């Protein structure tokens, strides 16, 4: 019989407010095996932990049940406490009476009753617990960063700086991400290229960093410290090693009518292209959708002009398999599609543009060489209207419920830059609120209003109507003046909401990393572990976790890198001892477990068994590799004969819990 101690936590008033903790401790005292039961205000505090340690020693406890918060919060804490008092840490069970009771119930009586039942289940389980000894597994000292924007670049540079090897997988032909398309950056107005391109070059030149551009992750296997990742290198029809990036092919290619994705389709490029002059790697890529040679075998100009002989029309997608200890997700964002917002006339008029398109129009490397001209007639706009929150903070189902966070600041930047460069231009900004938390952010916004005379109007735009003379009639409300406004604008700029890149969802599935309803990756703890995914070994960097601006992205990227470095610095990781094992006497050898095991931890072999009458039987039985098994339990439910069981979560323990609850 176990000697079980029960410790009920008040969690301040978090639990004690809805659960009569004294009654719980009292009721559980009479459960079979319980020799000690008490409650305390904060079990996780030093004083609380000392109560546990003393009780383990004084009452020779062999099992401990803590009625407190979710095991995700403090199971590790209490295991350490038990260990310090000489008890095997796996003899600790948590009954979650906070998230599962006090936080979701209002009635004290019902809450108390449920807390007692959950405590009873944990006691029933711990009665069947056995001490477990964890093993160790080695760590592959290489990290993978998925996404080569500023987040991925910064994470990779920081990891490489600590001496570890790191690979960047970028789906576009160049790293750099969205930041390469920006003109100036708030709040200091330095140009994006000037601060980003040196970092891109650093990546390329750092011998610890390998860049897989124009590549995607196609499969992820394994677990923390030991991931095996298949990377698909998409055919770019150019030999990366031979191409010098001279650009001769991109000038001679006869296919000139390809919408230039880098400039968001505001101008055209050739079928063979280098996205922009500072691309890294500076290697040409053939766009197979437009290349005449690839489509109908007639052309071949680029191959003729290429001095390096780098063009290879027969190139195929190739796959590389590589092992990593840690994976950083840095898949970034895109502005949402504005199809659902007909009222703003984005589809009807070329002169209704998104903010990212404005960045390109104002950029010296953009389609107009940096002169702000209307896309329709290439004239200077004299009245410009900015519309904030297009699809952000939107609960009508068309857009996103969240705030995209960066729009207030970049719009202030746009307004300011336009007023600076073209003082004869009137600039109106329609807003719901102006949100400027951030160092020097509010000062920046106030400068736009006070020094640059930008007209900020609190209110939303109802309609943008293109007029026959090419003007755009903007109708909106001014809530402060309580009046309807009509502005005849030359250019309307929509601050489109941002959303996670479309690749994030499938990547999340591959990584078994959880996501929220908006497809942002969720963090292990929103406050205390913001750069880690709940899936061990997966880290989050940049907007894939939630909207953020460049300074915040860079700090998060550094934080993710430090977590990766902390992991890679270890030679071995302690394994979870709650792994599966097979009862060979029950095993049928059917392979059901082997097929469902996501980690390849199960193997089969023919073994000799003693049969009746001194005969020897040879049977095919399963065995589990403890170092590879992650204890997910898929095999235990797939096993038709009940031969597979999970240590620490055995079928009999779970049945005991169910029985205790139903008692």
């Amino acid at each position, binding site marked *: 019989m176990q000697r079980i101690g029960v410790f009920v936590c008040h969690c301040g008033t978090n639990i004690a407010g809805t659960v009569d903790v004294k009654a719980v401790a009292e009721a559980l005292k009479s459960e079979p095996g319980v020799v000690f039961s008490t409650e305390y205000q904060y079990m996780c505090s030093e004083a609380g932990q000392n109560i546990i340690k003393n009780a383990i020693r004084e009452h020779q406890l062999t099992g401990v049940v803590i009625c407190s918060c979710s095991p995700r919060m403090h199971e590790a804490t209490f295991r350490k406490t038990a260990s310090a008092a000489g008890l095997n840490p796996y003899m600790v069970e948590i009954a979650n009476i906070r998230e599962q009771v006090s936080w979701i119930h209002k009635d004290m009586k019902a809450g108390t009753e449920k807390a007692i039942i959950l405590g009873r289940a944990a006691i029933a389980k711990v009665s069947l617990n056995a001490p477990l000894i964890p093993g160790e597994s080695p760590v592959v000292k290489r990290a993978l960063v998925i996404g080569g924007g500023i987040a991925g670049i910064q994470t990779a540079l920081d990891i490489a700086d600590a001496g570890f090897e790191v690979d960047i997988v970028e789906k576009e032909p160049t790293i750099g991400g969205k930041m390469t398309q920006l003109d100036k950056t708030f709040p200091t107005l330095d140009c994006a290229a000037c601060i980003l391109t040196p970092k891109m070059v650093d990546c390329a030149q750092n011998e610890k960093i390998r860049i897989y551009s124009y590549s995607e992750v196609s499969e992820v296997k394994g677990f923390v410290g030991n991931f095996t990742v298949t990377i698909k290198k998409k055919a770019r029809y150019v030999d990366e090693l031979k191409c010098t990036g001279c650009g001769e092919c991109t000038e001679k290619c006869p296919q000139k009518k390809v919408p230039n994705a880098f400039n968001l389709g505001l101008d055209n490029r050739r079928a063979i292209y280098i996205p922009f002059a500072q691309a890294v790697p500076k290697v040409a890529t053939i766009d197979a959708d437009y290349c005449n040679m690839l489509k109908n075998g007639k052309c071949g100009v680029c191959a003729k002009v290429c001095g390096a002989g780098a063009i290879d029309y027969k190139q195929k997608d190739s796959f590389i398999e590589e092992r990593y200890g840690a994976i950083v997700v840095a898949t970034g964002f895109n502005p949402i599609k504005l199809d659902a917002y007909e009222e703003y006339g984005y589809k009807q008029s070329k002169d209704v543009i998104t903010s990212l398109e404005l960045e390109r129009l104002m950029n010296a490397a953009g389609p107009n060489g940096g002169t702000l001209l209307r896309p329709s007639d290439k004239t200077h706009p004299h009245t410009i209207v900015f519309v904030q929150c297009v699809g952000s903070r939107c609960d009508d189902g068309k857009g996103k419920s969240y705030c995209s966070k960066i729009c207030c600041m970049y719009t202030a930047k746009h307004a300011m830059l336009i007023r600076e460069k073209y003082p004869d231009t009137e600039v109106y900004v329609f807003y719901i609120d102006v949100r400027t938390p951030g160092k020097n952010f509010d000062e920046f916004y106030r400068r736009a209003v006070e020094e640059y005379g930008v007209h900020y109007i609190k209110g939303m735009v109802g309609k943008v109507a293109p007029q026959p003379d090419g003007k755009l009639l903007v109708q909106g409300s001014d809530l402060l003046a309580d009046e309807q406004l009509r502005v005849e604008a030359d250019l309307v700029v929509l601050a489109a909401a941002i959303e996670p890149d479309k690749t994030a969802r499938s990547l999340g599935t591959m990584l078994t990393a959880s996501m929220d309803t908006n497809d942002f990756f969720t963090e292990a703890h929103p406050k205390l572990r913001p750069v880690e995914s709940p899936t061990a070994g997966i880290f989050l960097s940049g907007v894939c976790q939630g909207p953020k601006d460049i300074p915040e992205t860079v700090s998060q990227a550094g934080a993710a890198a430090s977590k990766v470095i902390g992991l890679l610095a270890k030679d071995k990781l302690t394994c979870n001892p709650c792994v599966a094992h097979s009862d060979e*006497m029950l095993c049928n050898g059917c*392979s*059901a477990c082997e*097929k469902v095991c996501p980690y390849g931890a199960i193997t089969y072999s023919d073994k000799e068994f003693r049969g009746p009458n001194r005969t020897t*039987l040879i049977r095919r039985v399963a065995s589990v590799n403890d170092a590879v098994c992650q204890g997910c339990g898929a095999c235990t439910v*797939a096993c038709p*004969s009940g031969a597979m069981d999970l240590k620490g979560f055995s*079928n009999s323990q779970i049945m005991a819990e169910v029985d205790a609850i139903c008692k």
Partner: protein
Amino acid sequence: MQEIMKKRASELLLDGTVSRVIGWKAGDFVYDITPAVFESAEEIEKDFVYTAFCGANLSKYLVKESKKPGKTLVFLKPCDSYSFAQLVKEHRVNRDSVYAVAVECRGKADVDKIRDCGVKGICGISEENGTLTVDTVYGDKTLPLSEVMLEKCASCKTRKHAVYDELLGEEGEEVADCDRFGKVRELESMTPEERYEFWRGELSRCIRCNACRNVCPACTCEKCVFDNDNSGIAQKAAADSFEENMFHIIRAFHVAGRCTDCGECTRVCPQKIPLHLLNRKFIKDINELYGDYQAGADPDTRPPLTDFRTTDAEPSIVYRRGEK
């Protein structure tokens, strides 16, 4: 057919290709035919039978027999061949030590249904072109086979074998107009209360003889959970008759995704419980949720219940269907 099979079995035993033959032999009466292992041509000559009463699926006996030295010949009707293929897939039978002989089948007779037609004193049976001639102590009686077929044959899904080494007779076709899920649909359209009453009525007859489990080719566990003292289930006395009835539901869950719908459970049930309907409900659900799947149809496809794809139906869909 019987003579062709006897001749071929004897030849293969004599030339040493196989060391034993799994077939059928008559019991005390011509209609209580039992599976049997024959080890010599003499035994074949003496006891081997293949008649309209040979409904028994022989594949399960291979679990034991195929572990013996030498090859084992097994006669497989089309439905049996699926069970065999599924056993091979689950590594319960070593394919290399089996010589599978496919035999044609046009459906097997249910002696109770013959008796229900008022036929008594049965002492022989023969079949020709879908007509049964029953030899009785009161003289010969003729019956159309289609009227006295076993349930599993009346709803036969295919007369084509999944796998074999040698074919005797003619290979059949898939049964295009087979409506094996008709009764399941009927049950689905009932209210939960009606359905509960239906199953309580059927299952209350169960005497826990375990015949269904013992005959089932999917039930080949080294140690059945119901016999395992350590499972925490075996020693438990059922709290009420409903809990006792759970046996069949647990068994249906255990064979879900592996059941080939061979219909042996219903054939052997002495209490005439339509057990196959439980399995067919699972098969129908699997087909509807994960696409058509036939256990034992081929050695490679991964069974839907132990295979995960991102395109799989979401659990919420499964749940919503359950609410109906």
